[in-house]
């Protein structure tokens, strides 16, 4: 990362956000009977949205890309048709995204096309940092906690065990600044060992100041709490989830949800979308993993009686015109996804201007929906609260109507 995360902890917004904490919010640790989980999935590397959800009959796309990097309307490997596109084109979904197609047809998945970060940057690392901090410029980035941390701090969730969870090995920047955020990639290894060893670590970390002391105590508390919560937990049958790291991370989020641990916000990341060369095979493989993982997760959660809403985005889309290495370079506007039982899915939202070079943004899909619109709308509708200043400087645009009232 090019930004010091430690500096981010000193948020100028913290005081005002805490003041905006909704009245009546429980500040103590309390395990609700069911969760109302918001899951943020970040596809790192720049997912090529034009290879996932696209107008298969667009002449400009034909001119810009070989068949290998487009969605076919017919023949072997034909893409899956999508009803309710944002234009009169024949909109299609990548053929490997069969579970996403099922969710879409069931009305539990909405796409938002030409969405993204309204910043003029094609840098992975800057744009990922923007996405995780809920900002659109470098100066704001330097003064912000992660947006999930800000939400947690403003609502009191940031001080509760397991309210914020990363199922990846390290805490994502979106949670930087929330001291109680937990990273737990492998529940079975979320242990310390014997009672003697636990006592030793508790005594050793009890009086330590600074990051190490604080984080050590957070970890010791979390391990203790998890041991109680997870007693008697039965994992889903083998084969419920794939064995890839994305599916595994989603299964961990589902497990913590089902433990009634009080989980409210979670993040899972999925790397390997930076397809500058030989995109076709790599992309298909990643799409299959994405689709199967989300499909398994939604089914697993759905059968548990818990409520979950997932937002999926990448830091940017890719250039409309491909390069000569069978790949695509960094672009701008992209497709976002919102999944959940409360989602008004089965539709591609967003303002679609087409792909004619005259409407493109220096060769890229222009961003017509600010990603913060999607985040704000979903948080507000699903969680029932949108702390003022969560996305400072952003004026919400009229809601797209992604969530059922």
């Amino acid at each position, binding site marked *: 990362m090019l930004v010091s995360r430690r500096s981010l902890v000193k948020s100028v917004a913290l005081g005002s956000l805490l003041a905006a904490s909704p009245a009546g919010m429980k500040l103590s640790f309390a395990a609700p009977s069911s969760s109302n989980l918001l899951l943020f999935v970040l596809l790192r590397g720049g997912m090529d949205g034009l290879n996932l959800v696209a107008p298969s009959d667009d002449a400009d796309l034909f001119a810009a890309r070989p068949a290998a990097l487009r969605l076919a309307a017919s023949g072997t490997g034909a893409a899956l048709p999508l009803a309710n596109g944002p234009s009169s084109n024949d909109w299609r979904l990548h053929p490997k995204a069969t579970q996403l197609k099922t969710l879409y047809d069931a009305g539990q998945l909405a796409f938002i096309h030409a969405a993204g970060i309204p910043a003029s940057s094609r840098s992975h*690392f800057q744009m990922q940092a923007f996405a995780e901090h809920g900002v659109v410029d470098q100066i704001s980035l330097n003064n912000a906690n992660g947006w999930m941390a800000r939400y947690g701090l403003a609502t009191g969730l940031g001080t509760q065990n397991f309210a914020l969870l990363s199922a990846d090995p390290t805490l994502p920047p979106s949670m930087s600044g929330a001291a109680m955020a937990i*990273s737990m990639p492998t529940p079975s290894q979320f*242990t310390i060992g014997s009672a003697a060893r636990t006592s*030793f670590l508790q005594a050793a970390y009890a009086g330590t100041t600074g990051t190490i002391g604080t*984080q050590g105590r957070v970890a010791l508390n979390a*391990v203790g709490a998890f041991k109680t919560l997870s007693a008697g937990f039965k994992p889903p049958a083998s084969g419920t989830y794939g064995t890839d790291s994305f599916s595994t991370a989603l299964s961990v989020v589902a497990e913590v949800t089902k433990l009634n641990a009080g989980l409210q916000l979670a993040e899972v990341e999925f790397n390997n979308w930076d397809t500058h060369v030989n995109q076709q095979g790599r992309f298909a493989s990643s799409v299959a993993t994405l689709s199967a993982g989300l499909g398994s997760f939604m089914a697993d959660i759905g059968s548990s009686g818990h409520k979950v809403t997932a937002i999926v985005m990448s830091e940017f889309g890719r250039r409309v015109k491909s390069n000569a*290495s069978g790949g695509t370079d960094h672009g701008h506007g992209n497709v976002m996804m919102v999944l959940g039982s409360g989602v008004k899915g089965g539709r591609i939202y967003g303002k679609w201007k087409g792909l004619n070079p005259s409407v493109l943004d220096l060769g890229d899909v222009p961003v017509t929906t600010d990603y913060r619109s999607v985040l704000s709308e979903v948080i507000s509708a699903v969680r029932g609260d949108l702390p003022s200043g969560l996305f400072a400087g952003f004026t919400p645009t009229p809601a797209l109507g992604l969530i059922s009232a």
Partner: protein
Amino acid sequence: MSFSDLVTSRFTFGMRFNDPQPVPSAPAAWFNGQLAAPSADDASVTARLAQVMLPLTTTDATGTATTQSLPLTHLTLTPEQLWAIQAADTSANTALTRRPADEVVAAAWIRGSFSPWQLQEVMTDFWHNHFSVDAYQSNTIAVMWPAYDQVIRAGALGSFRAMLGAVAKSASMMYYLNQAQSVAKQPNENFAREVMELHTLGIARYLGETASAGAEAGGYSDTDVTNAARVLTGWTIADGNKVAADGSKPATGDFIFSPNIHDTGAKTLFGQAFPAGVGQAEGEHLLDILANHPGTAQTVATKLYVHFVQDVPAPGDTLVANMVQSFLLNAGGATQIQQVLQILFNSPEFAASAGQKIKTPLQFLISLLRVSGAEVNPQSNLEWGLSNLGAPLFQWSTPNGMPDIAAAWTGTNDMIRRWSLASQVTAASTKILVDAPTTLFAQIAIGLSSPTSVVTLLAPLMLGSQLSTSTSSALDLYAASSEILGSKGVLGDSTKLLAGVRALVGAMAATPEFQSR
């Protein structure tokens, strides 16, 4: 903490028990000597490397696996010799092709643990992370990995321009960032962008998608990225298909300039004209501009500051500015990086920074190996451990390299994994640390009467003057528990005592004090 201890904690991988060449109490001369490290391995390291036997598991066409234990034979091979391995690999699992990378990983544990040229090792880690490449992303990168490691080692204390050029021309970087595949017709922008954003000018100098070149602002725009990609077309690797200037198609794995995939048009970069028809020299000129740019000096100086001093420069701190000045003053010189490090070493900011840095996973593990005083078996358990800490060696998945600040390595999972790994590394059962009369364990295990006296002897050696009273009393209690040294049976039995002391060393490695440097 004494200045000598501070120097040990930052410019080495940590104190080594019974170190034959410790950092002296007045470390200036030691540091000067370290800056002039020879390029070759020290004899003590060479001898240890010669003893390493690393498993190699190959499968044949029927899927039958064969495992052999073989010495390290690829570390000093030339790019040409390494390149030939891939075509000759008859194993079905391409294990022979990945073997060169495996050997560099094994050697890194030995060098980090035992090299008396610790600054060379620390800076090699620094530059590997700066010019980060995932060694196992493809077989081609893996087979060429010893050559890439040689480039980083050779350049670690020298001229930034020289290292930048050697990195840009190395097969591992060329394939990782797709420069090898870039052609004039539709250039691949991957390397052109990252060399500016990550290796040189930095994101602070990025002006975004502005259509105008960014010379006035001292930065670069996407137009500059596109034009840099055009400039660099023709820079590729001799893979047997690319046509060299003389019309031949060499297959050596070396850098070549291939004129027929080079964009021969005139370009404008950073507001400067790059005339048509100059060929390979256009790319050299681009690297000259980048290497000598104030933005690059800022990028490198800031990164060195964060690595060696603290996570965030304090207000009024002039060290970064002083290093920038030195970087630019010595640009292109063979001692450029040495000069910059001298500024850092002699600065009040460095002297006042004791305890300000958290060990990265690699620093945590190697410091534990060093303080044990044991011989190290560089086997897969070590790599597994580092992967568990989220930082597998040479396998960061994105080209930005791993973060170097506390917040990145102190999440819940990070803490729990460190605690458990500390015990696993020190346990005899994992066979990582080899028992010998020279180990810390063996010294302590001789002639002791009480658990507390073990702690009294051991803790200062492991944790130095930073040992807190709470940690000290926690260790006393733990040592006296039945788990470690509490029963008379353990104290009376030298074998059990050795195991107990190992476990106590593992516990000390889990303390707050051992996590910082």
